[in-house]
């Protein structure tokens, strides 16, 4: 049987990462920016899975578990920050939070 080359999987990961990056840059809603960061982290994990599957080593899957842990912690802290921003500024536009006030 013909197998898929590794470049195809890495290309899929790159396309997903670029979509997330474009969304981070064009969106101003802060929840959408968080979702885009999740897409980018998922794409990075996909690249690890593809590489680990290519060399038949479990290391790639372990890196994916670490990325998963980091994404879970990141989304909880990020959502708490979003709640605070909405509580303070009454908006979700990230341009409204462009100055620091202690």
């Amino acid at each position, binding site marked *: 049987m013909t*197998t898929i080359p590794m470049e195809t999987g890495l290309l899929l990961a790159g396309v*997903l990462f670029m*979509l997330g990056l474009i969304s981070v840059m064009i969106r101003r809603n802060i*929840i959408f920016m968080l979702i885009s960061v999740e897409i980018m982290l998922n794409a990075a994990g996909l690249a690890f899975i593809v590489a680990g599957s290519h060399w038949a080593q479990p290391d790639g899957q372990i890196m994916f*578990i670490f990325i998963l842990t980091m*994404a879970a912690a990141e989304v*909880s802290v990020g959502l708490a920050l979003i*709640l605070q921003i909405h509580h303070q500024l009454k908006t979700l536009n990230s341009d409204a939070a462009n100055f620091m006030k202690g």
Partner: protein
Amino acid sequence: MELTFYIAAAVAVLATIMVITRFNMIHALLYLVVSFLAVAVVFLTMGAPFMAALEVIVYAGAIVVLIIFVIMMLSLTREDVEQEKAWLQPKLWMGPALLSFVLLAELVYLLVIAEMPAAPAAGSYVDARAVGLALYGPYVLGVQLSGILLMAGIVGAYHLGRQKKKIIHRFLQQQEPQKERSAVL
């Protein structure tokens, strides 16, 4: 087997494009779930079934539910009843339903027809046992660091998500010890 990979990859890219072009947040999250499920099918065809299960449970389950909870807490919708009627239009849920039906057909094909562990589409099959042995063998320091990271995440989310106490009456307000603080500073 190769065709399942390409179909799942196309579904993932299509759903992600739909995510970043939606204006309604709940519609975007619906497509985001489909995108994560498609990536899980890609993992399955890559010979990583344990990671596919984790992707479904943690990404499509926990993280998306957390984001939905926060959107509900913010209560951004002003027109509630009309919006609720608008949810039930078929054109809103037809896209994600169609894409996830493609993924369901692939899953049934993989489970029933193709012999999954013997022939992954790309690379080779790495089962959960090898992952577990490597995770608690050479990578045990990473597991401990992950535990510390999750602990910091819990404490940080609790600290940041805490709201300030509302003052019921100004007589009940506690006096700030400003003199002592300025004296210390």
